[in-house]
């Protein structure tokens, strides 16, 4: 079962919505009773028809959850901050960078975009919730919300501000709509005040918000 790499469809509504609830507090319909029943029915059918056993399903869930929190993504970013050769590879050929760490997305290609003083990148999938699950784990639930998906392409500066990220007018925001066979990760700027830090220490400053691009990497706590 390779479902973790497939498009996860939450309806094709790329209509505009003006929902003024902060995006992080928007609830996705994961716990909608109808969806829970549908989920159960599909599982039972898959089992009855012998397509997927419950054990296989459990294995897949555990594999995904084990990677939750973007452990490998954090490692890659911290390494890019400390190893210029790896940074260059990550930006020029994300696939090759993944392969060099023994990783892959099993189909889709991996693209890494770099934040600088002049350019700020942010990732979305407006049609569903494409996300490099194979390396970043499961996305935060707001990433799948209709509010985030429809608003970040319409009013990126407003959405970023809701996450506390206020960018000067001259900074170019690039919103990447990941709809197809590419999966994206943002390489955030290395926080100031981390000179001399090890890659292990730096990795702790990187959360999924920074890898999606709605927030910078964390500042070191003194």
């Amino acid at each position: 079962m390779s479902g973790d790499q497939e498009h996860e469809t939450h309806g094709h509504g790329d209509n505009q919505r003006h929902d003024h609830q902060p995006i992080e507090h928007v609830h996705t319909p994961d716990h909608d009773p109808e969806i829970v029943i549908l989920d159960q029915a599909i599982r039972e059918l898959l089992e009855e028809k012998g397509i997927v056993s419950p054990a296989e399903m459990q294995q897949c869930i555990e594999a995904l959850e084990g990677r939750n929190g973007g452990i490998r993504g954090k490692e890659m970013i911290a390494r890019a901050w400390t190893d210029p050769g790896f940074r260059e590879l990550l930006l020029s050929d994300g696939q090759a960078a993944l392969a060099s760490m023994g990783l892959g997305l099993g189909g889709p290609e991996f693209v890494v975009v770099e934040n600088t003083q002049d350019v700020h990148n942010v990732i979305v999938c407006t049609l569903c919730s494409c996300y490099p699950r194979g390396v970043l784990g499961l996305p935060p639930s707001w990433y799948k919300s209709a509010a985030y998906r429809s608003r970040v392409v319409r009013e990126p500066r407003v959405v970023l501000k809701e996450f506390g990220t206020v960018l000067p007018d001259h900074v170019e925001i690039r919103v990447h709509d990941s709809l197809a066979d590419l999966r994206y990760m943002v390489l955030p700027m290395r926080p100031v005040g981390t000179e001399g830090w090890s890659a292990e220490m730096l990795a702790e400053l990187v959360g999924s918000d920074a890898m999606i691009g709605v927030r910078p990497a964390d500042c070191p706590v003194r």
Partner: protein
Amino acid sequence: MNARFRIGDRVDVATRHQAGHVRTPNYVKGKTGRIVDVRGAFRNPELLAQGEPGLPRQYLYRVEFDWHSLWHDGPSSCPDRIIVDIYEHWLMTAAGME
């Protein structure tokens, strides 16, 4: 089979409405963008979703749109861009003037 477009080419996105598993979002249909990246040729997801082999493969591009050209409001000086993954069969050489 070679990619039809190159980096820097200006392209129009088709306006057709198509049922099923379409990977081109409505907000870029009929809009003009620039090719910023030419990826490989992938099996066509619209056909794969119907249980077909997804052939012929379609080149996948990253196409950049000025934020202002998509939404026609806000300051035209806004430097922001939206970069969308689009398969070749949705694109044609741009017809109009910039």
